[in-house]
């Protein structure tokens, strides 16, 4: 366990836990919305098991009046209604912070919580200095109370009865469903947040269901009165001051953000096979399969349209395929028909897409694979976080073919990168892998309204709709200097072409002629050089901090949040630290990176994997290797807290490899 301390930054860390299926998620979402509604920025992280009911899940929500892009390890307010959550997390509550718990469970034995792994049991009993078989919940509570943590025992069942009277419902199985929101309400009362924000949150959480909102509000009021009536000492920490105003913000998680971006981007065909954490995006799209079109503009017609009917509403076809092989192949088929097409998956699914990817590369078919990385290898840690697939994506598939790999650092980037991914795919006629991860997928943030003002849809080179000669000689794979050949959609008059995974000639027919082979191989590979030369450097890398620094952090993907938060936290202490975020991983932006790192004395590679994949890639492409590593591969995203400690360790002590262990 870390050394707990209250950060200088104005952040408030709230956590709720409970067994899966007991409403932890909706409680946390309601809390996050409440707090956002009250004017804060929030960052929420969800942790859950690969299990439907019974295992422990928890949700951390950090609120701030400034930036917040990661969680803390230290908890200000721990909200629980079962014993397990206390056993697991109470030790992380800050002195002066508080724990809400069910007072009827204080006698609960550690040994009776079958979902606790042996190392947790061992850790808890060691901290308490007792035999595991002797430990009860009250021991933990006493222990943390000794560390100045404030205790808020709640008589949930009594209160539930009271609520039952008020709403005229006494069935316990029914009433129990209100416990989660009651716990949230208790925390709000302790934190002194006006319950009217909760009302908005409940309307959002239980959309449409007035009665449910009402009952939950009754429960919230009831517990509020209880808390205010029973406790006098509240937390040593207060939420920083904000003035709630009409901010144009949204509260979303990553799969929703990407789903919306796909609709905006013009993606009209998405395939998937269920997999955590990717399938939420597809399920979202299924739900939004029909959406309005801007009717007050002049459309650019797709190449295939023969002056047809134009609907007022667009639609996206979302297909649940029989497996991920079918998923990518269907998307490629749709793309051949001229449609922006994508598939979303996670590691195991991506592992099945190798041949489809290679076929798209060989046949120059644009297709986007949205890859939500999760803990690997194999089935791994299916609901946990990792950045373990990057080198695989770059080398994925037998033989050599061009592809683009980009990675988003946060949800805002994820939105625009989604659109960029399709633009790259169509412009360079190749598969694009958009790397995201479980942390982006399942985190909740307050996001400003995404702006489409600067968004351009680039569809690349197309041949004229009406092609001259009966179609026997349209050269789909015409040799060109750039490597790009104008394409047509299936169904275009005069555009008949052939496609094959075999090496082929300009028409798309199989060939084994060595000279055609060389020409085609070179044509395809030239496109990757083209992409490298055309894509502006701002889309390839981002730099934070002092460019002239000689101490650099290098990283990619969702570590961006904790890194920026940690840098902010280290303001005044480590102002000389600069951060290079690599956003385009393939083709690798070697030149600008060499330029930046040329004089670096310290290059700290921060990644959520075992082997420091970006470090390896950078060395492969620039001969520059990281000098230090901060890595984490236990399935949980970096907290700002541990990154601050790790950075200090690296910089002050010169530690070569720090492995972070926070949960």
């Amino acid at each position: 366990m870390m050394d707990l301390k209250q950060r200088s930054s104005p952040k408030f860390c709230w956590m709720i836990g409970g067994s899966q299926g007991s409403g932890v998620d909706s409680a946390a979402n309601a809390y996050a919305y409440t707090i956002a509604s009250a004017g804060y920025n929030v960052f929420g992280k969800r942790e859950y098991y690969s299990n439907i009911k019974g295992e422990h899940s928890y949700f951390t929500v950090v609120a701030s009046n400034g930036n917040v892009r990661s969680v803390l390890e230290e908890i200000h307010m721990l909200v629980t209604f079962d014993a397990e959550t206390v056993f697991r997390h109470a030790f992380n509550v800050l002195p002066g912070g508080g724990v809400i718990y069910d007072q009827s469970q204080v006698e609960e034995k550690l040994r009776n919580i079958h979902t606790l792994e042996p190392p947790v049991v061992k850790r808890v009993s060691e901290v308490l200095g007792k035999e595991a078989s002797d430990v009860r919940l009250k021991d933990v509570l006493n222990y943390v109370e000794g560390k100045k943590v404030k205790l808020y025992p709640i008589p949930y069942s009594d209160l539930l009865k009271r609520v039952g009277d008020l709403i005229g419902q006494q069935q316990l199985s029914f009433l129990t469903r209100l416990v989660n929101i009651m716990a949230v309400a208790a925390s709000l009362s302790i934190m002194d947040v006006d319950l009217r924000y909760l009302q908005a949150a409940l309307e959002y959480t239980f959309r449409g269901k007035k009665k449910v909102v009402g009952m939950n509000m009754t429960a919230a009021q009831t517990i509020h009165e209880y808390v205010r009536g029973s406790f006098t000492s509240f937390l040593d920490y207060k939420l920083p001051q904000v003035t709630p105003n009409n901010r144009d913000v949204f509260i979303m998680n990553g799969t929703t953000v990407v789903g919306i971006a796909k609709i905006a981007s013009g993606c009209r065909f998405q395939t998937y096979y269920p997999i955590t954490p990717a399938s939420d995006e597809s399920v979202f799209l299924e739900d939004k399969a029909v959406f309005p079109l801007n009717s007050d503009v002049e459309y650019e017609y797709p190449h295939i349209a023969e002056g047809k009917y134009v609907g007022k509403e667009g639609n996206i076809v979302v297909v649940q395929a029989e497996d991920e092989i079918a998923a990518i192949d269907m998307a490629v088929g749709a793309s051949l028909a001229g449609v922006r097409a994508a598939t979303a998956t996670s590691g195991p699914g991506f592992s099945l897409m190798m041949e489809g990817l290679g076929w798209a590369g060989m046949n120059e078919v644009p297709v986007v694979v949205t890859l939500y990385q999760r803990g690997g290898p194999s089935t791994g840690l299916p609901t946990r976080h990792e950045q373990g697939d990057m080198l695989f994506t770059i080398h994925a598939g037998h033989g050599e073919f061009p592809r683009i790999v980009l990675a988003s650092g946060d949800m805002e980037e994820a939105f625009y990168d989604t659109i960029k991914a399709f633009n790259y795919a169509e412009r360079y006629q190749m598969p694009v892998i958009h790397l995201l991860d479980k942390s982006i997928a399942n985190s909740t943030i307050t996001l400003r309204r995404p702006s489409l003002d600067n968004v351009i849809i680039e569809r690349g080179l197309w041949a004229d709709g009406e092609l001259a000669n009966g179609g026997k000689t349209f050269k789909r794979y015409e040799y060109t200097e750039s490597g790009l050949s104008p394409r047509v959609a299936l169904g275009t008059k005069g555009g008949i072409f052939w496609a094959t995974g075999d090496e082929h000639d300009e028409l798309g027919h199989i060939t084994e002629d060595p000279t055609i082979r060389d020409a085609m191989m070179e044509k395809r590979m030239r496109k990757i050089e083209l992409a490298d030369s055309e894509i502006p450097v701002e889309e390839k890398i981002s730099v934070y901090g002092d460019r002239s620094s000689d101490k650099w952090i290098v990283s990619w993907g969702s570590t961006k949040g904790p890194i920026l938060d940690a840098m902010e936290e280290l303001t005044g202490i480590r102002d000389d630290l600069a951060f290079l975020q690599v956003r385009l991983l393939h083709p690798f932006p070697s030149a600008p990176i060499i330029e930046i790192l040329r004089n670096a004395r310290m290059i700290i590679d921060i990644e959520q994997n075992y082997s420091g994949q970006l470090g390896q890639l950078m060395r492969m492409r620039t001969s520059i290797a990281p000098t230090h590593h901060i890595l984490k591969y236990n399935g949980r995203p970096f907290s700002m807290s541990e990154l601050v400690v790790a950075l200090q360790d690296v910089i002050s002590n010169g530690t070569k490899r720090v492995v972070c262990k926070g949960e």
Partner: protein
Amino acid sequence: MVMAERVSVTTFRTDVFNNWCPGCGDFGILSALQMSLAELNLQPHKVAVFSGIGCSGKLPHYVNVYGIHTLHGRVLPFAIGAKLANPELTVIAVGGDGDGLGIGAGHFLNSGRRNVDILYIIHNNGVYGLTKGQASPTLRRGMKTKSLPRENINDAINPIAAAIVAGYTFVARGYAYDTKHLKDLIKRGIEHKGMAFIDVLQPCPTYNDIHTKEWYGGEDRKDPATGKPVPRIYKLESVGYDGEVRNESEVTEKMSRAIMKSFEMGDNIPIGVFYSNPLVPTYEERIGAFAPNYANFPPAVQPIRNLAYRPVAKIDDILEEFAVK
């Protein structure tokens, strides 16, 4: 509407050198397909032929329509993707028996559940042709074609029964050397509303020395009276078999009868339509149930940007659901 141009069989020919072995049954399938496209008077650019990998997989290169030669075993997902993106296209998938029933069996089975309006033709030659004659999933156990080091160890799959069980709504068998009959089947398969499947018995003279043209033709069993060969193949029509479902109540019975009929093999091999059920809604219709303008406004004809290249989908309503209030 652009006026349709007149087409003939030659319209559907390409000048690509055909490198199938002399006498290969694939030639019959190719010409039956070209004939049916011509007779249906389809515009070449409105047709897309997809294929898997194998000797059979080369077929699209010989047909003058959009020709997509995909991956081994994956022809159905590619074809279905294209069809759903643009239901205006006439989509035909072809492939080998190894391709469709070996490595592709998962797609074969699951595609039946969708009833997408395409036609799928399997070149059933009992061998993996292009990899030099290993046993394919349709070769019966104990058979030893000349390319096998020993007798085939696996039982055979019955493609007709498998297709019916999987949910294909038009299931037929053709014979590569009865091109006229096969052409009619292909026409019906294309015209069928829903997922059609045709199992084509295709002699592979190079590797399958058991199921040869002569064998199908019954050259080895002459009628003692006439001295003429008694073909092993007969037409379902010729025995008054009718596999067409005309109302819901007939489904189970017709299905069962078709499956039973498909067990008929050996020296009496029926060809023709085993089962046809036009009453099942297509996948396209099922999409239409919640996206009513899908039929007229499918993905391939939707504009996605305006003349200034800006996105045209309105996302504000969706965003609104997540707005913090």
